[in-house]
């Protein structure tokens, strides 16, 4: 085996061994049929128990996944049956009284807007970070710098929330005013409430960007490391500058990787709960002006409302959680499809 194991060679080795093992199993079976030995059956028992329990663990995992979907759907349908409003187009959240009416339009809007802001900031920076670590940083310190960026992923979200609320959001008031002063003619940049705090969807977007950045950077870095060296050297040998080499050899190769990494990050940004719940000064209506306080996300709404909700309210929150579940499922599924089509860089280490 060579000293450097690339994922391709690993995959090959695995497939290879699988074939080989499959064959040896078969021949074992064949000799067994001819010469039955009592000692063999004992061995078989251990193997059978071990295979059974490990397969059982795998099946249990599938059962858990199925149970998640089933239980959420059942509880959600229960609550939706009592809903007086339209669940998909309303943006009110009244779950007690004679006429409960709740809908996720405002929540989905806030979730999508904050995640979109996060993506717009995080993806270019993360690609830059990945390029820096793979192609610009001195080789000796590159790995350490990679670890340092990974540390950002280890910071718990509640700490992000606390930091965002106490430290970051007061500092962003100026940026909010500046953006609305100069870009206010674009409707979404308009700011109604001039002196307000910066506990807005925009601030949440920035915090989400910081949170998903290390995830995107890690996967993108893995992809950039797998660009064939021959391509890079060919570009340089033709007289390309480093940037031209990156543009012609690295980025085209890494493009599917960047896309799928971004979608993994998007999945995380959509589902982030506590940081948004702490920072955002929320309201139920559908908010497009993200520089004004207000708006809410699905996950943050669950965290904020759950404690004070009655039975029906919790069912309604579960229904909104189901929407979030399908939303992230869709995004992650798309990311996996892209990754699997280019099997050599699975995002497994992210």
């Amino acid at each position, binding site marked *: 085996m060579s000293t450097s194991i690339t994922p391709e060679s690993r995959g090959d080795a695995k497939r290879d061994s699988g074939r080989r093992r499959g064959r040896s199993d078969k021949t074992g079976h064949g000799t067994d049929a001819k010469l039955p030995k009592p000692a063999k059956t004992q061995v078989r028992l251990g193997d059978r128990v071990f295979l059974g329990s490990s397969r059982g663990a795998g099946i249990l995992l599938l059962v858990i996944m199925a149970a998640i979907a089933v239980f959420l759907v059942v509880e959600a349908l229960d609550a939706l049956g009592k809903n007086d409003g339209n669940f998909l187009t309303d943006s009110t959240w009244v779950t007690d009284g004679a006429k409960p009416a709740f809908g996720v339009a405002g929540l989905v809007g806030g979730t999508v807007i904050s995640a979109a802001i996060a993506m717009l900031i995080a993806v270019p920076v993360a690609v830059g970070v990945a390029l820096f670590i793979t192609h610009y940083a001195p080789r000796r310190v590159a790995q350490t710098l990679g670890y340092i960026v990974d540390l950002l992923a280890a910071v718990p979200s509640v700490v992000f929330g606390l930091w965002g609320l106490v430290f970051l959001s007061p500092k962003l008031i100026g940026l909010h005013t500046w953006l609305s002063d100069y870009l206010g003619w674009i409707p979404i940049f308009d700011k109604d409430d001039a002196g307000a705090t910066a506990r807005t969807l925009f601030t949440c977007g920035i915090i989400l960007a910081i949170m998903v950045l290390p995830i995107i950077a890690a996967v993108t870095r893995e992809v950039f490391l797998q660009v064939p060296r021959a391509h890079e050297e060919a570009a340089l040998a033709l007289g390309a500058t480093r940037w031209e080499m990156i543009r012609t050899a690295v980025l085209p190769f890494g493009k599917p990787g960047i896309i799928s990494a971004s979608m993994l990050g998007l999945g995380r940004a959509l589902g982030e709960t506590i940081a948004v719940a702490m920072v955002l000064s929320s309201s139920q209506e559908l908010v497009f002006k993200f520089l004004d306080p207000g708006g809410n996300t699905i996950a943050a709404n669950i965290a904020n409302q759950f404690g004070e909700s009655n039975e029906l309210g919790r069912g309604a929150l579960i229904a909104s959680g189901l929407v979030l579940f399908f939303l992230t499922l869709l995004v*992650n599924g798309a990311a996996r499809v892209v990754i699997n089509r280019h099997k050599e860089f699975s995002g497994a280490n992210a």
Partner: protein
Amino acid sequence: MTITTTDTAVSPAAADPLKLTRRTMPDWITWALGAAAVGLGVLVKAVQGNWALGAFYAGLFFIATVTAASWRLEDRRRAKDRFATSIVYTAFVLAIVPLVSILGYTIKKGFEELSPYFLSHSMRGVGPRDDTGGIYHAIVGTLEQVGLAALIAVPLGLLTAIYLVEYGRGRLARSITFFVDVMTGIPSIVAGLFVYSFWIMTLGFEASGFAGSLALMILMLPTVVRATEEMLKLVPNELREASLALGIPKWRTILKVVLPTAMGGIITGVMLAVARVIGETAPLLLLVGLTQSINTNPFSGWQSSIPLYVFEQNHAGNQFSGDRAWAGALTLIIIVMVLNLVARLIARWKAPKAGR
């Protein structure tokens, strides 16, 4: 790998005696422009009193002038290259600044309150005007909840990974692999909602530490499976074949040869998974209830946990709760960072010699 080859291509100092290369910009210009940018930043800070604004102007000034100088002294392609280089460096700085800010600010705010007293007392009977109280009940809760979650998730994850690598072929293995990926993407609040609707609403149990463990287990499981799977794949097939050739049954081969070989990496993966779930707040908010007193029994009665404590103290909004929230955050960060560093060190010491 690639860095050594690319360095010579752009380094402005690489003067060619045969004059095959074009004119390059001398190094001192870059340095001088850098110094000028720093000066501008300090000036802006002095006038406007804002470091962020100073850094912004300094960066903008440096990128613009270096590109312009290179355009003038070299050529368009070099100018583009220098522009791209500055942007890439800027991106890295942009990623590091929040990390430094979060760690620095948490340490600064947290150290005021963090003390042996804080770590060894609960919040029982602490009124809104009291400067006492601590995090002990939350630490107990977190240790028990995460411990129980690991106790379930690690064997389950190990066995699943063994199945996928050593046995699994065909449709079952493929669907397990797919759903492990799907599980990785489940938002933590959704895991919490599931355990709530299953364990509390359907089975009728009370909120307890164990309910929280179940949600944490769901979040840990895919990480453990993934890490173990990657490590098992790294074990050379020659080892398996040597063992099988000696007539050792497959299950003993796995237990005595494959697992010990991969053990370092598996431990690393498990520790990273623990570090990930130890900071989870959202599912616990729905599942463990919330208490100010010490409850050592995770199976009955409400518990607290460190992230929940931070959230709750921040929410309380009285005179001393803010300090307690920061001290709790610092405790949490220290635990997570230590777990991460130890995991990385184990990975480095125990890693099979696998390049990179």
